[in-house]
């Protein structure tokens, strides 16, 4: 039994390359069929005692069993194709086909032993009622056994399909939500910028022109990066510069900024909307609410085989060191948790994010990513 199981497992494993799932299913059922046939042999030899040798009975059993199996399977395939039949229909079919399988199987076995077919059938006819009843019974039992196996396999397959589908849907929903979130340009920011633009047109048309250009760069980049899967550092820095330029016009002398992107890192791929939200946060929570304003530095650097992105500001700083309180429910943490989750989903353990107080004032956010090349 253990050996049979093992063999059947091996079989199944080696058959996994065969793409035809029906064929694979049929072959995987053979060990079970052989087992049932063996059981019949024993039954006929030792219980019914028909007087034939055990080998003879084994050949007959296998022939009959195989015939029944092939008949039932092919007729059921012909009748129902892919859609599974109801259990009752399947049983009825088995009972009807079993005697036919019995006769054919007997004939095949007789041919194998070169017995005259007619005399075999005559010999069999003495036991015919018992044989037919037995075959029917066995068929029903076998059918039941196969039926269950089919059902279970079907259920498992369905469950797996369902699981895969939900996972895909969930992933898509998350993706969509994330992109929507990223693409969101804060109306407050937009209207404030427009208000400044409106003012500048009257006061300083040349600067107004520049501000409008930067607004266009910002809007175009924000809207297109939210659609793209990847962006390069150069692109991201252009977007950030446009954003900072807009904010600097608004905040006047309260904001100073520097951007530092080494030439060799310009084409590095990074996920969109990863760096920019950090810059926006530093402005929104650090520098804008600070009376005297301050400085923000954004830099990219290479560190061994990873890419280090840093946003450093001299703003209000953090209420506490976020690293000390990794599971804080603080609302500003939500954004940080999102960044961590996103990084983990994209790069696993190879990426890291930290947000710390910057000495003597302000905050520093650091993202480490594996280099794309």
């Amino acid at each position, binding site marked *: 039994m253990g050996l049979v199981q093992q063999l059947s497992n091996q079989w199944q494993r080696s058959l996994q390359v065969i793409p035809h799932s029906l064929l694979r299913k049929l072959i995987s059922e053979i060990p079970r069929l052989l087992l049932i046939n063996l059981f019949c042999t024993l039954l006929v030899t030792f219980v019914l005692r028909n007087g034939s040798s055990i080998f003879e009975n084994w050949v007959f059993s296998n022939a009959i069993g195989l015939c029944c199996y092939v008949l039932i399977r092919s007729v059921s395939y012909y009748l129902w194709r892919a859609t599974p039949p109801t259990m009752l229909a399947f049983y009825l079919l088995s009972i009807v086909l079993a005697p036919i399988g019995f006769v054919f199987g007997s004939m095949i076995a007789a041919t194998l032993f070169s017995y005259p077919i007619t005399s075999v059938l005559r010999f069999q006819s003495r036991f015919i009622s018992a044989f037919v009843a037995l075959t029917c019974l066995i068929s029903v039992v076998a059918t039941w056994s196969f039926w269950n196996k089919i059902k279970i396999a079907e259920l498992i397959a369905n469950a797996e399909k369902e699981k895969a589908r939900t996972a895909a849907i969930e992933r898509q929903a998350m993706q969509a939500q994330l992109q929507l979130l990223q693409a969101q340009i804060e*109306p*407050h920011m*937009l*209207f*404030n910028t*427009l*208000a*400044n*633009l*409106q*003012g*500048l047109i*009257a*006061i300083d048309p040349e600067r107004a022109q520049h501000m409008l250009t930067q607004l266009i760069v910002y809007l175009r980049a924000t809207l297109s990066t939210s659609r793209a899967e990847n962006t390069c550092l150069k692109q991201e820095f252009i977007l950030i510069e446009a954003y900072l330029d807009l904010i600097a*016009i*608004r*905040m*006047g002398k*309260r904001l100073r900024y520097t951007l530092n992107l080494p030439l060799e890192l310009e084409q590095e791929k990074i996920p969109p909307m990863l760096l920019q939200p950090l810059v926006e946060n530093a402005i929104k*929570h650090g520098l*804008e*609410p*600070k*009376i005297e304003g301050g400085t923000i530095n954004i830099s990219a650097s290479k560190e061994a085989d990873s890419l280090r992105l840093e946003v450093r500001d001299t703003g209000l700083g953090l*209420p506490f060191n976020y690293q000390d309180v990794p599971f804080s*429910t603080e*609302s*500003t943490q939500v954004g940080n948790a999102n960044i961590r989750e996103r990084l983990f989903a994209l790069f696993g353990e190879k990426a890291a994010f930290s947000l710390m107080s910057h000495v003597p004032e302000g905050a520093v956010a650091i993202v480490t990513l594996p280099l794309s090349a």
Partner: protein
Amino acid sequence: MINQQPTIKALIAEDEPILALTLQRMLGRLWPELDLSNVVENGIEAVHTALDRLPDVLFLDIKMPGKTGLEVAQELAEEWPAEQPFPMIVYVTAYDEFAIKAFETCAVDYVLKPVSEERLQKTVRRLQSHFQARVPNTSDQRNPESELERVIAQLRELHQIAHPQTGAQNIPVAEKLAVIRAAVGNNIRLIPVEEVIYFEATDKYINVVTAEHSSLIRSSLRELLPQLDSSLFWQIHRSTVVNVKRVKMAHKDEAGKITLTLKNSEDKLTVSRVYAHLFKQM
């Protein structure tokens, strides 16, 4: 115009220089008689300058460093000299769905950024008619008084519409605190909230006062208040929250100023005008 009519003074509080200049220019066009020399760029300066210069009209940006426009209004309502007419307040805000809804329900005068000249014209007309009505009866003290009353009522209403947009917190409904954890040197002192007599906010800290001791926590009333049981802890001043069970008596002097005496504490607390209604008899 009548000669003896005093010039009407405005104060513009706006942190973005271009916007301040733009508003100044627009107002200058629409209302040439208005004195527009007072422009400040944050909430703290706004309070100082307003109390120093006593303007007649305030244009307050909502989102400013230091203090928000609403905080400026509240502080002025508390500190404004009683004999002076309280200024008219116009809030200025960029698109902010919540603020607009709140302003509409409280009938607060506001203009949106970018400022439309037409909309500002309406506001100017309303302000002008208000001042014209006021000039003939400057002797009447009830009139300026009523403007303060109106602002206080508005602020009270705005407070009740909890303010998710001010500050960074979008915390749904904060859980109520049972214990205050205050750092004392290297130790943490655990203070059951019911033992607190009052909280007093300073610049960055809140002083937590009990019968035995007072300790500092690093927080703001804005963060702390939602975590306190509002039936037990009443805000009585922009920087004071008192445990009502520890209040012995509320005393009102001739000028109408209310002072609280406390159980188990010698301290006396002042109730600001904005919260005076809490101590009217039932």
